[in-house]
């Protein structure tokens, strides 16, 4: 009896419960709905919920527990000499049994006890599903009957239903928190695992990145996991990106809010914002096929050696992507500077640009710094552009024409191979991810802090 079948039966019972409960509510008052405490459908809901919720909870618990219990039983049924094998060999055998039980192809010779265990596992799974089905349906029917019998005019059905709804709403808002908790804990757990294999000092202060992919798994593959070259690459590329994005974004924000006519503004602002909506993989492709070769050719003409994947290419493209972040945030902030400050400046004889540079800009500065920091955190976390256009060589270099690599690139490259999950080569990605998370979170919080602390309060 499959999971979906059980679910369908429960849902069908709940549906039946809704109609039965509503009908009974109307029946007990002979159709005079005003004599009921709540509207008739609330009685239907009560019956439906009492039928479905306990059964669903049981089903969820069963599904969570079921695999490990059966696993333990199958393992317990293996011959004693097999159970005494070292963990890695035992794991291999268990995988074989698992594959057999699911009808997947198995390589090599299969011992008899494995076949027997697989058969046992299959039959256990079937039994367990039947038991789950029987229990859940019994629970649903029981809930249905109990609730159905309690339907009576004084029953406060609406209050019950609304309490359940409110707890559901609360649970949903907790999911947002659970996501963060999940992010932090999943990465923290794997990172601690990684630090048990590689010293944190070697990770945070190492200057060589050489994870030795080829020899992964064998015991002599120490590998070096120095964070610094990756961090430098990230900072370097973000710096180039900000050198493009800040002047361009700021000047366009100033032009749009101070000089442009209403018509120009209405057209140009959405057009510029398209730049932020284009998927980053598209920027990456553009950098690789168009901008990279162009820079290489220009560099060749000038006698410079620019590699096709360079910090410059990735940085410039990323900078263009970030322009709208800087410009639209700054635009809002510049617009928030009160007109009276401008008028005061004009009255003293300042020109338009002098007013902007000496009055508006200083007044808007905290907000602008905040927006630049937010944009920087976006640049640091950006992945696809650098994966495609920045290269994979981890180098500590200040030459923008050379290829460098970033934290995000290495997270992707460490996790897209077929690697066992407890080697440092794989686990390092989680340490990198946690570093990235902490850095971007820190930047965001700092940006908000700056904006709050230095915000000028007018009026």
């Amino acid at each position: 009896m499959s999971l979906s079948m059980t679910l369908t039966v429960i849902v069908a019972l709940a549906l039946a419960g809704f109609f039965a409960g509503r009908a009974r509510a109307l029946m007990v008052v002979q159709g005079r709905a005003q004599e009921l405490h709540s509207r008739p459908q609330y009685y239907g809901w009560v019956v439906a919920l009492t039928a479905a919720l306990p059964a669903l909870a049981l089903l969820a618990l069963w599904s969570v527990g079921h695999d490990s219990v059966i696993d333990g039983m199958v393992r317990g049924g293996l011959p004693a000499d097999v159970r005494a094998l070292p963990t890695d060999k035992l794991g291999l055998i268990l995988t074989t049994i698992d594959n057999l039980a699911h009808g997947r192809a198995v390589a090599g010779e299969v011992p008899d006890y494995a076949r027997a265990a697989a058969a046992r596992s299959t039959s256990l799974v079937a039994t367990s599903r039947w038991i789950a089905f029987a229990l859940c349906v019994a629970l649903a029917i029981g809930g249905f009957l109990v609730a159905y019998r309690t339907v009576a005019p004084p029953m406060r059905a609406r209050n019950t239903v609304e309490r359940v709804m409110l707890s559901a709403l609360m649970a949903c808002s907790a999911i947002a928190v659970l996501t963060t908790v999940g992010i932090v804990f999943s990465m923290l757990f794997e990172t601690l695992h990684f630090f048990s294999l590689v010293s944190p000092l070697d990770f945070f202060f190492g200057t060589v990145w050489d994870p030795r992919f080829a020899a992964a798994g064998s015991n002599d593959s120490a590998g070096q996991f120095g964070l610094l070259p990756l961090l430098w690459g990230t900072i370097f590329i973000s710096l180039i990106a900000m050198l493009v994005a800040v002047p361009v974004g700021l000047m366009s924000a100033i032009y749009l809010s101070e000089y442009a006519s209403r018509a120009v503004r209405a057209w140009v602002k959405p057009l510029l914002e398209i730049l932020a909506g284009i998927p980053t993989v598209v920027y990456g492709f553009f950098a690789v096929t168009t901008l990279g070769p162009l820079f290489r050719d220009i560099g060749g003409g000038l006698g410079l050696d620019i590699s096709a994947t360079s910090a410059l290419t990735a940085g410039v493209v990323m900078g263009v992507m970030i322009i709208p972040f800087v410009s639209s945030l700054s635009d809002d902030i510049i617009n928030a500077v009160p007109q009276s400050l401008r008028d005061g400046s004009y009255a003293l004889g300042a020109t338009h640009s002098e007013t902007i540079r000496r009055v508006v800009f200083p007044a808007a500065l905290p907000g602008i710094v905040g927006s630049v920091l937010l944009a920087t955190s976006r640049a640091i976390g950006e992945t696809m552009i650098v994966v495609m256009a920045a290269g994979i060589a981890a180098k500590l270099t200040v030459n923008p024409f050379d290829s460098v690599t970033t934290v995000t690139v290495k997270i992707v490259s460490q996790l897209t191979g077929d690697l066992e999950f407890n080697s440092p080569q794989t686990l390092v990605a989680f340490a990198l991810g946690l570093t990235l998370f902490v850095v971007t979170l820190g930047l965001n919080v700092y940006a908000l802090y700056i904006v709050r602390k230095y915000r000028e309060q007018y009026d």
Partner: protein
Amino acid sequence: MTDIAADSFSITSSDARARNARALDSSRLRARYGAEKRFRVYGAAAIVFGLVFLAWLFGSLVIQGTGAFRQTQIRVAVELDAGELGLSGTPDREALEKAEYQAALRASLRKTLGVGSDRGERRDAYALLSNGADLEIRSRVLADPSLVGKTINLWLTAGADVDTMLKGNISRDVPENKRRVNNRQIAWLDKLAADGRVGRHFNANLFTKGASSDAELAGMGVAIVGSLYMMVVVLLVALPIGVAAAVYLEEFAPRNRWTDVIEVNINNLAAVPSIVFGLLGLAIFLNVFGMPRSAPVVGGLVLALMTLPVVIIATRAAIKAVPPSIREAALGVGASRMQVITHHVLPLAMPGILTGTIIGMARALGETAPLLLVGMVAFVVSQPATPFDPATALPVQIYMWAGASERAFVERTSAAILILLAFLITMNATAVILRRKFERRW
């Protein structure tokens, strides 16, 4: 400003000094107006830079990509000789499925081109057509078994190299040893073209086929279906949870430390780098829950978590925009708070909620990095039947094709990007129209 003011007030009554100051002023004024003009030009230049880049990006994609929507085909008179096909008597369906279409096709091709028994010459001739050309014949014969024994004129897909050269993406002036199409093949192609046997037709493969190492047989079909499944998962997960969370925070939550934590949390989640969500998906969904790799349902869940803050923020804004008078009126006629929300506030906030959701989904559709980590970079040939089967996604397919070395894939990558952008533009336009149409000022 203060020192400028002080300067201008410190002028004394002396005539000479006044004249001097005026001369100074006019030159200074010129300089100031010059600075004013320059400043304005900088601003305009910044905007022009952004717009030119945008135009350049789109222009280069359109120029590179439009060619891929049409595929070169070669018309070959295929003799479906029963003997050559290895068929005898009245073949049943199974026999038709296993028949030697390649042999028949090759014989017909040799005849069309007048190729002798030289093996190099034969190989060159066969390379003109795609590896999948015999399958095209097969599907024709399976659809109409009476074709066996006849000669039919069929447009068959040309090889990717031939396609690339005929579209002019590889110049004929390149020395022969650096070209993938040699002089003999060019001569044949010219002759075929003169006979009207070379043409370009709509490239249906691009929209239906899955992954293939032959560029002419590779398509976005699997990716489109995979992305569709993921969007459905995002909609089913992020919309209800997001709306419920927003309703709780906006209407029920007491103002205390716990709700402050939730609020700060949601704002920070919106700024977490997308690749971190990929790590979460890998660690939790794949390793802890044991969900299948490369499955759209996992990718969809990861994207749903990413979209959740967007939906929550949009919903809260939409709920806030519903005026309190509506709530008070409903409460006044005896509705409970839950009824006020489900019967009045949410229906009125719906356009805003949907607009926010569509924009969030458009962002999720273009997202690549987290999908790489949950194994969506897969070579999937056949269409996924359910969201639990391996599939790829549109942006991931673009990433994979961008990494392919054949020249023919550049064109296809650009075309794939155009398809993705078309989806994104449609979604965003829907959101804008929705907002325009249902926006209410209270």
